[in-house]
C-alpha cells in the first residue's frame, strides 16, 4: 500500500493552550512531509471527524495520525475501518496534563511523541486476517461426567456438533455412584433427587452429539478450528477434526490409604465419603465389617485436606457433601447418633440453611482436630478430638462407621512432570523457567511445550482465575468442573455451561480470523520471515501459550489460531524475523530512533519508557487525569506486553544517545498480573542479557531498569520516573549523544 499520511492535531482540552501548535505541525509537514496536516480545536466533534473522512475520500489519505487524547478514549470516534491505518499520539493525558504549559521541554516532548507516532504509522499496514482452511466448528468434550455431559449438551442446544469422549464404559462419572444431591432450590433444607438417565440422555439421544465410551484421547494435534483428534477406542483409532475443546476430566478422591492416622485400613468400618455414597445409592447400607445395619456414624471433615502433609487446599464441596450424608442417616432414622468433626464448617451461600436444618435434626457438631479413631472393644469405633470450643479432649460415643470426607485431586495432577528436554552436555540450562506440565494422559497434545495444560498450583490449570477463569494457557482448550478448581455439583453445571460458551466463542472468532482473549478481535498475527531464522528456538520456548511447534531441524512452526498476539515471540527473536502488520521490531526501533536527542551540553537527558499497554500505560494516563506531574525527559512507547520488548530496542536507544530506559511491566511471580502470563517475567530474564549490550557499549548498568507496576500504582509513577531521572543525573549523560 502506498502510504499517504494525514496528521490531525487537536488543540482542545488544553493542548492548544499548552503547546506551540504550529511548531508541532512543522514536525509533520517539514520533517515527515505528511500529505495533510490539520489542526482542529475539537477534533472528536462530528465536524472534526467529518474533516478527516473528507480527506480519506478526497485526498487519498490512507494512514491517519491523531495527535490528541489517549488511545484509551474516543476509540469509536476515531475508527476509520480496518482498511485504514490509524495511530494515536497521546498529547493530552501524557503530555499537557502532566507537564507545565508553554514550556520548552513540554513542547519537545510533544514533538517527539508525534515523531514516534508518524514513524510507526509510516510502517504500519492494515491487518489481513489469518483465514484457516478446512475449519471445523465441532466441540470436543473430554470427560463424560456431570461437567462433560453438561458442556456437551449445552453446546448442542446452541446448535453445535459435539464429540464426547469418556474413558469408562458408561457416562455419568462420579454421579453414577451418587444417591442424592444437596439442595439448590428453596427452602434449601431438603436433599434433591435426580435421574441419572435423564442427565445422560441429554447427550445420548442427540444426533449431533457423538459419544465415544471406553475411549481415550491418543493425540491432539493442530490448533483451534483445526484440531485433529485421535480417539482410541476398543483397540482402534477414530479420527475427528474439531474446533475447540472442553476439558472436563474431573477429579478423583484423595487416596484414603494415606490416612492411616484416621483409622483407614485399620478398621473396615472406616470408610470414605465415596464408599458411603455408593452404599446409599445401592440401598445396601451396612457395616462393612459385619454386614449389620449402621446405628451410629461419625464424619471426619477435611480428611487429608487443609493439611500441608496431604492436600493443603480445601476441596470446597466436602462440608456440604457430609451434611448431605448426615441427612441420609437422619432421614432414615432421626434417632441415629451422627457426629461431624470439623475445622470450619464451610456451608457457604444457602447451604447454610441445610447446616441449620441438621443442627435442628440433632447432628452433633464438634469443632476440633481429630486425634484418633479407635476400636472401642465392643466392635464399635470412637473418634477422639481436641475440642476447640470447650478446650478439652472430647470423644464420640461408639459408632458403627467413621466416614472420611476426603478431598479432590484434579485428574490433571496425576502423572509425572513433563520435561521438554534435558540440556545436552555443553549446552546451557534453559534461561526460561519451565512450566509445570503433568503428563496426565488427558489431552495428549502434540505441542512442543508439553502434552497437557500448564498448571498453576496443585495441578489445577493455570489461568487468571479471578477475572478470566476460563482462559487456560492453551488457546481453544477450556477446563471446566472439578478439574479446573474444586467445586460442588451445581457449580460444576454452571462452570461447564460457561466453558461450552467459551468453546463456541473460540470457534466463532477463529473462523473470522480474529484473536481470542485478551486481545479479542485483533486481526493481526505474527508472520515469520523464515529465510533469516537461525533455529535458536527462543520463540518456541518462550511463547506463554505453546503456540509454536518445531520441526526436526528446530525451525519454528507457527499456529496462528493458537496465538494470543502478545508479541512475546517477537521480543524473543534475536534475528527480528517475527512481525505483525501493525507492530514490529523495526517499527518500534525506528520510532525510538526518531526521538530528537539533544547533545549533552543542553542538559536535557532522554528516558525511553516502554510501557505495558494494559496496565502501565493506563496508569500513566491516570497520572495525567489527576494532573500529577513528572519530569519531561520521558518518551513513552506503549508495548503489547513487556514480553514483546526486543533487546535491539535497548541497543537502538543507547546508541542513539538516550540516557536511560525504563521498562514498566506487570507483576510477575506466583501472583502474577501479566495478562500474557509470563511476558513481564520474560522481559526481566532478558534484562540479564542487557548487560552484554551495556558492556559492549561501555555503559553503566543503571541505565536500564525494570519496574513492576499495576494499573492502580499511578500515585507512585511520578516518583518512579523522577527517581530514575535523578539516578541518570548521577550516572551522567550517555556518551553516544551526537553520534
Amino acid at each position, binding site marked *: 500500500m502506498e502510504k499517504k499520511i494525514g496528521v490531525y492535531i487537536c488543540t482542545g482540552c488544553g493542548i492548544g493552550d499548552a503547546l506551540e501548535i504550529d511548531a508541532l505541525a512543522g514536525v509533520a509537514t517539514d520533517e515527515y512531509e505528511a500529505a495533510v496536516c490539520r489542526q482542529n480545536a475539537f477534533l472528536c466533534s462530528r465536524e472534526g471527524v467529518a474533516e478527516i473522512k473528507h480527506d480519506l475520500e478526497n485526498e487519498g489519505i490512507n494512514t491517519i495520525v491523531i495527535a490528541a487524547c489517549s488511545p484509551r478514549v474516543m476509540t469509536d470516534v476515531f475508527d476509520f475501518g480496518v482498511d485504514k491505518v490509524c495511530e494515536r499520539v497521546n498529547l493530552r493525558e501524557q503530555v499537557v496534563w502532566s507537564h507545565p504549559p508553554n514550556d520548552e521541554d513540554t513542547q519537545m516532548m510533544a514533538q517527539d511523541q508525534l515523531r514516534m507516532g508518524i514513524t510507526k504509522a509510516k510502517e504500519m499496514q492494515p491487518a489481513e486476517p489469518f483465514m484457516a482452511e478446512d475449519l471445523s466448528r465441532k466441540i470436543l468434550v473430554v470427560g463424560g461426567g456431570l461437567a462433560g455431559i453438561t458442556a456437551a449438551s449445552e453446546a448442542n442446544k446452541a446448535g453445535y456438533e459435539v464429540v464426547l469422549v469418556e474413558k469408562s464404559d458408561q457416562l455419568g462419572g462420579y454421579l453414577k455412584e451418587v444417591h442424592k444431591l444437596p439442595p439448590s432450590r428453596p427452602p434449601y433444607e431438603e436433599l434433591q433427587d435426580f435421574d441419572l438417565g435423564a442427565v445422560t440422555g441429554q447427550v445420548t439421544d442427540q444426533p449431533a452429539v457423538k459419544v465415544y465410551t471406553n475411549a481415550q484421547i491418543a493425540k491432539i494435534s493442530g490448533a483451534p478450528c483445526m484440531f485433529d483428534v485421535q480417539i482410541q477406542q476398543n483397540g482402534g483409532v477414530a479420527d475427528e477434526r474439531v474446533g475447540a475443546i472442553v476439558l472436563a476430566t474431573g477429579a478423583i478422591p484423595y487416596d484414603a490409604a494415606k490416612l492411616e492416622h484416621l483409622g483407614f485400613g485399620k478398621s473396615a468400618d472406616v470408610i470414605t465419603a465415596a464408599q458411603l455414597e455408593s452404599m446409599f445409592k445401592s440401598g445396601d447400607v451396612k457395616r462393612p465389617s459385619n454386614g449389620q445395619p449402621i446405628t451410629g456414624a461419625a464424619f471426619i471433615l477435611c480428611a487429608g485436606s487443609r493439611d500441608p502433609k496431604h492436600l493443603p487446599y480445601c476441596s470446597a464441596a466436602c462440608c456440604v457433601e457430609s451434611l448431605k450424608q448426615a441427612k441420609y442417616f437422619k432421614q432414615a432414622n432421626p434417632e441415629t447418633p451422627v457426629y461431624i468433626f470439623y475445622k470450619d464448617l464451610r456451608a457457604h451461600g444457602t447451604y447454610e440453611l441445610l447446616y441449620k436444618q441438621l443442627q435442628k435434626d440433632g447432628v452433633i457438631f464438634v469443632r476440633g482436630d481429630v486425634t484418633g479413631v479407635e476400636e472401642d472393644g465392643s466392635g464399635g469405633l470412637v473418634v477422639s478430638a481436641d475440642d476447640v470450643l470447650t478446650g478439652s479432649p472430647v470423644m464420640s460415643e461408639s459408632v458403627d462407621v467413621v466416614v472420611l470426607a476426603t478431598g479432590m485431586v484434579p485428574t490433571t495432577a496425576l502423572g509425572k512432570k513433563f520435561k521438554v528436554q534435558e540440556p545436552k552436555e555443553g549446552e546451557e540450562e534453559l534461561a526460561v523457567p519451565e512450566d509445570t506440565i503433568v503428563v496426565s494422559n488427558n489431552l495428549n497434545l502434540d505441542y512442543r511445550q508439553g502434552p497437557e495444560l500448564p498448571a498453576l498450583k496443585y495441578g489445577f490449570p493455570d489461568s487468571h482465575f479471578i477475572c478470566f477463569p476460563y482462559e487456560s494457557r492453551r488457546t481453544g482448550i477450556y477446563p471446566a468442573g472439578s478439574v479446573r478448581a474444586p467445586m460442588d455439583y451445581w457449580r460444576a453445571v454452571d462452570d461447564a455451561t460457561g466453558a461450552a*460458551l467459551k468453546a463456541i466463542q473460540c470457534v466463532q472468532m477463529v473462523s473470522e480470523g480474529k484473536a481470542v482473549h485478551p486481545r479479542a478481535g485483533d486481526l493481526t498475527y505474527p508472520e515469520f520471515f523464515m529465510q533469516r531464522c537461525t533455529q535458536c528456538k527462543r520463540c518456541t520456548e518462550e511463547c506463554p501459550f505453546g503456540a509454536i511447534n518445531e520441526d526436526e531441524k528446530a525451525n519454528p512452526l507457527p499456529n496462528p489460531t493458537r496465538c494470543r498476539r502478545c508479541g512475546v515471540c517477537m521480543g524473543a527473536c534475536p534475528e527480528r524475523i517475527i512481525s505483525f502488520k501493525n507492530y514490529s521490531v523495526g517499527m518500534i526501533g525506528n520510532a525510538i530512533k526518531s526521538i530528537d536527542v539533544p547533545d549533552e551540553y543542553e542538559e536535557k537527558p532522554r528516558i525511553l519508557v516502554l510501557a505495558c499497554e*494494559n496496565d502501565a500505560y493506563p496508569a500513566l494516563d491516570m497520572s495525567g487525569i489527576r494532573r500529577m506531574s513528572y519530569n519531561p525527559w520521558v518518551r513513552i512507547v506503549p508495548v503489547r506486553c513487556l514480553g514483546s520488548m526486543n533487546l535491539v530496542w535497548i541497543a537502538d536507544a543507547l546508541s542513539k544517545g538516550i540516557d536511560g530506559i525504563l521498562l514498566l511491566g506487570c507483576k510477575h511471580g506466583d501472583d502474577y498480573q501479566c495478562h500474557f502470563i509470563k511476558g513481564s517475567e520474560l522481559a526481566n530474564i532478558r534484562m540479564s542479557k542487557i548487560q552484554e549490550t551495556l558492556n559492549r557499549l561501555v555503559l553503566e548498568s543503571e541505565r536500564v531498569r525494570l519496574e513492576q507496576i499495576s494499573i492502580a500504582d499511578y500515585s507512585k509513577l511520578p516518583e518512579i520516573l523522577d527517581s530514575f531521572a535523578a539516578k541518570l543525573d548521577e550516572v551522567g549523560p550517555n556518551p553516544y549523544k551526537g553520534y
Partner: protein
Amino acid sequence: MAQGQNGERSILVVGGGMSGLSAALEAAEAGFQVYLVEREPYLGGRVSRMNKYFPKLCPPNCGLEINFRRIRNNPLIRFFTMTEVEKIVGEAGNFDITLKSSPRYVNDKCTGCGACAEAATTHIANPFNYGLDTVKAAYLPHEFAFPMRYVLAPEVIGSEEAAAIKAACPYDAIDLDMQPSTFDLKVGAVIWATGWEPYDAGKIGYYGFGKHKNVISNVMMERLAAYNGPTNGRIVRLSDNRQAGRVAFVQCAGSRDENHLAYCSGVCCLASLKQATYLLEQNPEAQATIFYIDIRALGKYEDFFTKVQADERVTLIKGKAGEITEDSTTGMVTVQVEDQSSGKILKDQFDLVVLATGMVPASATDKVPAEAACDEHGFMLGEQPTGGIIGAGCVKKPVDVATSVQDATAAALKAIQATFRR
C-alpha cells in the same frame, strides 16, 4: 433508538458490573448483538469501588481495563448508562423492552476535559465513596470511569451555577434541558445481572453503625484503603482522621442470622482477611482482630487464609460479636464477644471496627419488571417462569468475582439458546 439487525437474536444485559460486563462480552464475542444497560453513570459496578481482589491482592481496574477495551473494540455491544429497565413483555426469542434513561445533563460531546468541574462550586456527597467525602456537582465519577464522561448532579439544575457550568464548557456538552427519556428495544433474551447491595448494618442495632463514627462497613473499608478513595488510601478513624492502629473485623454482621440474613454470603471472610492485609501493609504497627464463626476460605483460597493467619499481627477469635459501645471522648470502640475457645466474655477496645456485612441481591428490592421467580431472600431461581429471562451473578447466589464471571459466562450461553426459541 436504532435497532440491531436481528432484534430477536439480540440479548439485553441488565447491570454493568462484573457479571453483566462478562455476560455482555462473552455473548458479543460469540457473535451476538448485545445491549448493556447500567443504572450508574459508569460501567464496572461494585468491583470498581474495590481496592484489591483476594487472593492475589491485584487491582480490579486491571481486569476492568481489559473488559472495557473489549467493549470499545466490539461493534456488537451497545451500552447505555444511567438507564434502567421499565418493562419486559414477551417470551424467549421475542421480548419487547422499555428502557428509561435519567438525564446526565452532559451529552456525547463531552471530552472529559474537566472545565465544568472547575466552574462548579456546590459539593455533593460522593456516591462513589459511599458519601464518605464530597465531590463537585459537575464530576467525573472516578478516574477510571468508562465512559470517561462527566455528570452533572440534578441538585444544581435550574441554578445560576448550572448556567455558569454550561458556559464554562468549550464543547457545548452541557445540556441543562435534558429530560428523562424512554425507548424500546426488541431482544430475544434478557440477562438480569444487577448484582448486590451491602446489608444495611444500621439494622443490627447493637453494633451502633451510623451512631458510632468508628464503626464502618466492609465496603466503606474498601474505599478508605483505595488511593482514589476519600483519604487517598489512608485507613483512618472517621472520628478524627487519625491513622487506625487496632482494627476489629466482625464477621457475619447480620449474616447466618435468622433475624437478618439467614444465609452465608460466602465472600466476607476472605474480604476481611484481605482488608487486614491493607491495614498491615500501610501500618506495620497495626493489629487486626477477626471475630468469626467459621472461616470459609473455600478451595484454593485456603492458601490465602493460611498466609494471612500466619502474620502474628492478625488474631482470630472464634465467637460472634455482641454489643459494640463507644467511648465518646476518645472515639475508641469496644467489642464484646464470647470467645468460644475459652468460654470467657472478652471486651476489647479498637480504633476502628469493620462490620463484615453480607450481600443482599439487588433483585430483592429492585425487582425484575416481569414475571420472575425469586426465593424468600430475593435470589433469582435457576428455573424461571418466563423462559429467556436469566439471572447471573449475585442476583442468583452470593458469590465472589471469579464465580460471578463463570456464572455470567454460563448465562450468556443460556441467553443465546433462548434467542433460538420462537
